[in-house]
């Protein structure tokens, strides 16, 4: 086996630290939501539920046992990727944490958040195209280059990858369908086109991984890699369809509001 040190106590410690951070984030969201409801303003229970789900999925994805198994078994690695990079981010984005923060925080702080959001760099990376490149593009780099093998050897790279999965996944869901506001979010047609590209390229990557036993030069058997690719194909499909449902549901809600005010809004 080419793995250098496998799983050390420091890795377990890090996992517990991550769990602590997730718990704190969850508590902060809950407190903010309760404050919002207590001040006689509305905050959907579905959003609270969605945030809890996101945190739980993330915590499962970062379990020390999974972390350890993922070193040896690419199927576990793929399950982690689905949880951390696709399902958890979608649930977190649908909980609209940014809107909640803007409601609850004092005006001065909310204004500062808006300033940060309208920063040209943030605007650039939150464009659906850049988010797609960071998200799916990152996966192409991981599985088609020696990066995957390197991530097995260097633990810090491994953790960095998880962080990238989470951030890029969140960024992508937010840019495509987030209920949270995004500065100058492009129109529906462009976002739909990017969503289409993302579904097609994700399906394609998992299929060539299956057909050509990618990533190359790993300690995993071909059978394991094929099963991982299958998991990626079907799991990724489900996540992307859910994202598409979130995207069209947002349009559907706008349409319902417009019917009440008698304004015309059509899809595309």
């Amino acid at each position, binding site marked *: 086996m080419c793995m250098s040190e496998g799983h050390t106590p420091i890795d377990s410690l890090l996992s517990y630290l991550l769990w602590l951070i997730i718990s704190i984030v969850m508590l902060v969201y809950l407190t903010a939501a309760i404050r919002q409801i207590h001040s006689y303003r509305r905050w959907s229970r579905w959003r609270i539920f969605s945030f809890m789900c996101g945190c739980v999925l993330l915590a499962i994805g970062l379990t020390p046992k999974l972390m350890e198994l993922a070193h040896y078994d690419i199927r576990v690695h793929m399950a982690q990727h689905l949880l951390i990079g696709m399902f958890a981010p979608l649930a977190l984005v649908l909980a609209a944490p940014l809107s909640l923060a803007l409601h609850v925080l004092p005006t001065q702080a909310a204004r500062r958040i808006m300033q940060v959001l309208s920063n040209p760099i943030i605007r650039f990376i939150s464009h659906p195209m850049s988010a797609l490149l960071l998200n799916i593009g990152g996966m192409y780099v991981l599985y088609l280059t020696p990066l995957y093998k390197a991530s097995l050897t260097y633990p810090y790279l491994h953790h960095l990858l998880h962080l990238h999965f989470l951030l890029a996944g969140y960024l992508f869901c937010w840019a495509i369908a987030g209920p949270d506001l995004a500065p100058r979010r492009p129109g529906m047609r462009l976002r739909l086109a990017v969503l289409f590209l993302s579904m*097609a*390229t994700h*399906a*394609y990557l998992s299929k*060539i991984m299956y057909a050509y036993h990618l990533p190359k030069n790993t300690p995993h058997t071909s059978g394991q890699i094929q099963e991982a690719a299958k998991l990626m194909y079907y799991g990724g499909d489900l996540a992307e369809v859910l994202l598409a*449902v979130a995207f069209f*549901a947002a349009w559907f809600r706008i349409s319902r509001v417009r019917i009440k005010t008698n304004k015309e809004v059509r899809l595309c």
Partner: protein
Amino acid sequence: MHREKYVFVESRRSFWTTFLIGAGFMAAVDEIIFHQLLAWHHFYDQATPAISLLSDGLLHATELLALVAGFFMWADLRQRHELSAGYARAGFFLGLGGFQLFDGIVDHKLLRLHQIRYGVDLLPYDLTWNLAGLVLILIGTGLLYRAKKAIHSKSSDQNT
């Protein structure tokens, strides 16, 4: 006059929305059963396997998005009370049959992108696939004719 134009718009929207659902549904049946489960063919079989897989990825994304978009557009027509049931039924069947016959004639025979199977006598497969598509189209056409007649008789009732 205004009323007639409105009826025309809502029936056209009902028709194309369910046409999208029908075409997406048949594409999903084709892609999931023949491409994935049976692995008889890919969407484009005239180049390297990598290109074939890419073409399947594109078809897959298209069909899934068409289904999700179609169902939301259908639900939106319902929440506006603008769904014309007759046109919607016709659209669904013409979408199913339209995709199948287009795939059977244009993709298989004219463009020769792929065949249903390889290494066997194609005729029974081609006949089954295309005749099934034709039957669906005939059902859809019949439903469309009925929906049109229903609207005309309704508007002539109102005129008298």
